[in-house]
């Protein structure tokens, strides 16, 4: 297995606070890797640095060998590493379909002037985006609500829409920030299946941050556990569940039931 993403000695300090301290791990092509850790462990900060929303204090992130840390988010996205958000971040006053179509921006071949003048290339692009958007909408099972305003959608659909927006950019690596948060058991299981299909059918490498331990254990090929900004363990689900440092990190917190 070759590493598509290499996280090397990543450190992020906010004033006196060290959010990430010397974190290193690899993400292999085509795997589903989860980053877990108690609240405030520095998971979101780690994600933001990978996607270009925060600049690391030290260390670097490499994608297919090229350094991407320090690049602005739109450049990171252009290379193929795309993040979805913890909050249900979507374009609220657009319909589901409009959301997905607009997210095809990276596939634009016409220039903005071309779009303004409605050139042949621009029209071809729009037709292409519409086709691809319908394909993604079908893949994620959003066909019935295609023309609904995004602000009217329930939680579960919003999360799927967030993923549809991410998919529209044709990512090689997708970063999912707490994809199961606030979901009941059934919704979670549906989402788990969806993330699997994302990898199996579309070949997307998935890196996710999550609190829901049963879901993480079910979905992940490998897990990285961080606590107080440090990586404390890395391995398969069984290894992580048995790791004394991981159990200790969760002990006393509500997530202590990691063993189940």
């Amino acid at each position: 297995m070759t590493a598509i993403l290499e996280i090397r000695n990543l450190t992020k300090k906010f004033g006196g606070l060290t959010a990430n301290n010397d974190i290193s791990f690899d993400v292999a092509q085509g795997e589903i890797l989860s980053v877990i850790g108690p609240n405030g462990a520095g998971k979101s900060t780690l994600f933001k640095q990978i996607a270009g929303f925060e600049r690391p204090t030290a260390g670097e992130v490499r994608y297919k060998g090229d350094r991407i840390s320090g690049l602005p988010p739109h450049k990171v996205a252009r290379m193929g590493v795309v993040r979805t958000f913890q909050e249900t971040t979507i374009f609220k006053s657009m319909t589901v379909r409009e959301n997905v179509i607009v997210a095809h921006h990276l596939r634009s071949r016409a220039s903005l002037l071309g779009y303004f003048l409605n050139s042949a290339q621009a029209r071809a692009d729009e037709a292409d985006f519409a086709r691809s958007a319908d394909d993604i909408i079908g893949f994620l099972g959003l066909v019935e609500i295609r023309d609904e305003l995004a602000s009217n959608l329930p939680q579960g659909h919003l999360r799927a829409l967030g993923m549809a927006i991410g998919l529209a950019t044709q990512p090689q690596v997708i970063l999912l920030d707490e994809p199961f948060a606030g979901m009941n058991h059934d919704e979670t299981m549906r989402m788990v299946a969806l993330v699997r299909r994302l990898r199996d059918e579309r070949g997307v490498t998935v890196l996710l941050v999550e609190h829901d331990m049963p879901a993480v254990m079910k979905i992940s090929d490998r897990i990285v556990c961080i606590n107080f900004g440090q990586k404390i363990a890395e391995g398969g689900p069984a290894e992580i569940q048995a790791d004394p440092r991981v159990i200790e990190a969760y002990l006393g917190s509500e997530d202590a039931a990691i063993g189940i």
Partner: protein
Amino acid sequence: MDTQTQAYSGRAPDRTRRSTRQVLGVVLFLAFVFGVVPAFIAATGRWDFYYTLTSVALLSVAAAGVWLTFYIGRINIGQGAYALAGGYVSTILMTQGGVSFWLTLPLAGLFCALISVLIGWPILRLRGVYFAMVTLVLTEVARLTALALPITNGAKGITSIPLPGGVSVMGVTLIPDFATLENPRQAFYFVAVTVMVLVYLVLWRIVNSRLGHLCRSLQQNEELSASIGVNTAWLRVLAYAISSFFGGVAGAMFVSISQSIYPSSFVVQDSVNFMLYCFVGGLGYVFGPMLGTLLLYFGWDLLQVAGQYQLLIYSGTMIALMLVLPNGVLSLFDRKGAGK
């Protein structure tokens, strides 16, 4: 796939019908401003309407720019600065460079677009009320700059600016010299309305192309917009530059009509007004600022009969409008909006 095809074929005639209606609307509008209005004025002898309507047309051009900055999610209270700059650039080019007015018009716009890139690059990082405050200050900075610079002739301003000259190509007069015209007010009206039509055509195309969709994505969520690969910093500056271009063109036209410019030709009050025109017309509608300008400018004039209560009634009505129609007057005609 079958259901999808059905859905599209079901929508296709709808779309054709809509575009027919759009074309019809544009034709009616053009006929009204270029035919009905002059005929009405000639019949009633109310030549002063030309001045009022020319002002409305030009103010709505500046307001169109403000509206575009709203469209990327920024409150712009600095359009007065660009109108002033555009006015001075046009004037100075005409009086000192001997450049034809018709050439200074786009040059004034370009100059404003250029300085707006320099100003916008740092300040467009700010959001919400912080951006609004900086732009508010910008209008004041423009006034003080005009007072201080030697080329703008300080507080005395520049007066006796010549009327626009003629344009002829190979002996054929395209635009007559305004100084030779019996009724330059009517000529200014036609020019102003033509500029307005062009500006709104551009704005309409922007909004209905991918450029506009990207602006909307910016307005709704900048972080998500960046994560789908949009160069948000660049797009913000682009929209702001187009906005300032409109401001500069409007300012240059205004100055040419009044044939004079002073540092106080465009002040903070004007910048605030441009924003209010957008609010009243509707931020979600391309033609919102045009309607807003018409209503507020005319409304203010009509309320002159109320004497000392003019401002009271005007402000009261405005507050009521914003409470009752927060999405602007045009939301009245929007069936989708009304259903909500």
